[in-house]
């Protein structure tokens, strides 16, 4: 039985097989010549733990690691640099007023399948992304767009219905990624398994749970600062490996050149290895414990406070991450524009916590902590078990599979839950809205807090960053005051690579852009 190959993709598949069969002889980039892309920068092998189910940008969930890979195949009208600034990409320039944005497009771009990139392609892509019925999970993010019009072959106008501080952010990432209209039309369902964009790499093959390969886009439109053609790499191989210690061993032995995420207990083992560079690029993973505020005992703010007083965050950080962690008041990372170091959780005071429980007559109250059964989560849970035990709780830890844990938490069948998110995200609204608004899909605590709802709504109604920062700081203060959550610690999430890998650029949230990457000799 062979994988289904629909007519439109049959040619691509056939070419791919030919390449595979002939070794690298036919590979367009293997000669390392200077013309076009594939400048002899070698083939980069990536170890990736979190395989996307699909590489259709509009199906990729809003907050995910998929963009590490999507960026290889797709471009957007505008790019957002690491510092937050928007720069031209497929659009050479743009003008905006209160109710519209007009983009002037590059005229020298074609999709990997030869389809020209033009205003009609933009209309097709944005209309598809805005259409719930296409299965798009990006529609809400583009909700401020009323209509998309092709003014002429290389000009597109978006009509807007409100001020939306996130519109450009969304357009610069998944929601604004441009796929080949021809490929989408031929097989919309199969598009995500064989993505066709304008990006620096051309999709070759994908074996689920094993490997994904791509080769340099010889006709890539972008050049580097010196005018050299991009991409520099000849190709990409992504190996999907879930086990962190296998990933570490592979990096150590040169089986992969770069790894998406390694937990501290793994990357600290590589610290002294000269072949490997562990670089702190400001990314953190934010571990938190959410308390179920919809049922006793944590429906009582005083008891939640007792929990916050009993948790020794520093001890957890040290055990789980050695020295490689920060303590932060929330999802915010030091340096973020909405970070406020003055927000602090209650002082560590297990005896005080014990007193609170005692006076409430709740000593020995049984609580259940649900955690994912993958390290370091069970270890954090065990430390919390001991710390909360000292304060007088009787703690049961349940390490569960991811799906089971999430469904338990959605059904509010838990007392405390441990989870982690990668920070920073593209925008603080993506960090806070999914967790703290009344209707949020991940409102684990069951928070129904009008104050939080108001603040979070205000924060996305203006594009004045100072006003927004004020709102988000107030949100964080509120969450800490009410102790809905206990923010535990933020282990560093460094860029882990072989020392000869150079030129990795990063999105605001740290996801890779590989067009300028190469392997140094």
């Amino acid at each position: 039985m062979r994988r289904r190959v629909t007519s439109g993709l049959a040619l691509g598949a056939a070419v791919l097989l030919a390449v595979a069969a002939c070794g690298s002889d036919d590979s367009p980039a293997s000669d390392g010549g200077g013309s076009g892309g594939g400048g002899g920068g070698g083939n980069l092998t990536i170890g990736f733990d979190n395989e996307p189910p699909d590489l259709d940008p509009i199906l990729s969930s809003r907050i995910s690691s998929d963009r590490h890979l999507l960026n290889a195949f797709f471009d957007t009208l505008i790019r957002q640099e690491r510092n937050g600034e928007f720069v031209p990409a497929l659009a050479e320039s743009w003008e905006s007023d209160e109710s519209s944005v007009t983009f002037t497009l590059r005229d020298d771009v074609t999709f990997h399948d030869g389809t020209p990139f033009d205003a009609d392609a933009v209309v097709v892509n944005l209309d598809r992304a805005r259409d719930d019925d296409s299965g798009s999970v990006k529609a809400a993010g583009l909700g401020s767009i009323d209509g998309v019009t092709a003014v002429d072959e290389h000009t597109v106008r978006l009509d807007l219905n409100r001020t939306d501080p996130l519109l450009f952010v969304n357009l610069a990432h998944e929601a604004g990624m441009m796929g080949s209209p021809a490929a989408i039309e031929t097989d919309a369902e199969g598009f995500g398994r064989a993505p066709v964009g304008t990006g620096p790499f051309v999709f070759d093959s994908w074996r689920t749970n094993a490997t994904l390969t791509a080769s340099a886009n010889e006709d890539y439109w972008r050049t580097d600062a010196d005018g050299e053609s991009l991409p520099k790499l000849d190709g990409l191989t992504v190996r999907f490996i879930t086990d962190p210690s296998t990933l570490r061993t592979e990096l150590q032995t040169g089986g992969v050149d770069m790894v998406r995420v390694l937990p501290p207990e793994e990357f600290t083992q590589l610290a002294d290895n000269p072949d490997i560079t562990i670089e702190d690029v400001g990314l953190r993973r934010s571990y938190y414990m959410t308390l179920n505020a919809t049922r006793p005992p944590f429906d009582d703010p005083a008891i939640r406070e007792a929990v916050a007083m009993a948790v020794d965050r520093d001890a957890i950080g040290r055990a789980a991450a050695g020295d490689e962690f920060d303590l932060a008041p929330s999802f915010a990372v030091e340096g973020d524009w909405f970070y406020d170091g003055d927000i602090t959780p209650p002082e560590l005071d297990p005896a005080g916590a014990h007193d609170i429980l005692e006076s409430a007559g709740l000593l020995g109250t049984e609580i259940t902590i649900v955690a994912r059964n993958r390290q370091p989560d069970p270890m954090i849970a065990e430390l919390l078990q001991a710390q909360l035990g000292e304060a007088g709780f009787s703690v049961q830890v349940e390490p569960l599979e991811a799906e089971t844990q999430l469904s338990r938490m959605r059904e509010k069948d838990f007392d405390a839950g441990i989870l982690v998110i990668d920070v920073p995200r593209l925008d603080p609204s993506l960090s806070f809205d999914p967790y703290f608004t009344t209707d949020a899909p991940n409102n684990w605590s069951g928070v129904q807090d009008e104050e939080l709802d108001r603040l979070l709504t205000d924060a996305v109604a203006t594009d004045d960053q100072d006003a927004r920062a004020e709102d988000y700081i107030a949100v964080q203060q509120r969450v800490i005051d009410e102790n809905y959550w206990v923010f535990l610690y933020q282990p560093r999430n460094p860029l882990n690579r072989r020392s000869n890998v150079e030129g990795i650029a990063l999105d605001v949230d740290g996801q890779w852009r590989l067009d300028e990457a190469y392997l140094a000799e």
Partner: protein
Amino acid sequence: MTTYVLRRLVQLVPVLAVVAVALFVLLRVLPGDPTTAILGLEATDEQRAALRADLGLDQPLWNQFATWVGGVVRGDLGESWITAEPVGGVIADRLPATVQLMVFSLVLAVVIGIPAGVVAAVRQRSGTDSVLTGLSVFGLAIPNFFLAALLVLVFAVWWGVLPASGYVAIGDDLVGNLTRMVLPSVTVGSTVVAVAMRQTRGSLLAALGEDYVRTARATGLSRRRTVVVYALRNALVPVVTVVALQVGVLMSATVTTETIFALPGMGTLVVNAIFARDLPLVQGAVLVIVVFVLLVNLVADLIYAWLDPRIVY
């Protein structure tokens, strides 16, 4: 013989029916569903509900079962919920790594296990016997995830002579394939080698005590010839059976071994699919594994019959 084979094949039908029902029911009891894996954490309840309807999860259970069995009978194992790839295609993609792993393990059993068993039996109670028997005890007792970690540390990290993990198709790069299969095969094979050795030693000792062997020796045949020609042939009969029965055990070993060595085989396929709640994939993969195990057992019985003419059907 033909009637025997046919009868055995017919007997597989009710077994497969039991397997199908048990598998299906067991999987539907699993808590959680694949919507998070597909839609991500931040999807709304409506999006999840719509997806569940899309996947047919809102249908009554018997209906879902009938749809699946109907498909299986027609040779259609359905589509992965998560990647929408046809399950049959995914399995075809994964079988080679696992089959290769098993074949290599069995080869190790034949090449190392059986000769070692012969040596141990012929030199019964010698130092060689003790060492070999001790090694077999070790091979049976060491958990394969522990052995795998030790092998990777020594051969990949310290000595750097073999890759730590990964897989290359045998047709793409023979050397790359073989170097990557060495450590996993030794890991999975450790048990079978030990089993084959113990069984060979035991059966051969028993055979050497039999009358016909003593007679052969008494007629002046050399010891080597007696062992090889007479005793071993009879002794191998139970070895074949026992080793073939190990195929089921090997499948279990591949689950942890493939995870550690990042091999895209059936073991990782099943485990990942269970964790992601990709039920059509689990059902299809387990069904294929079960059929495979049953067929291997059947073949083992036939070889048994062929080796031992005393058995009449």
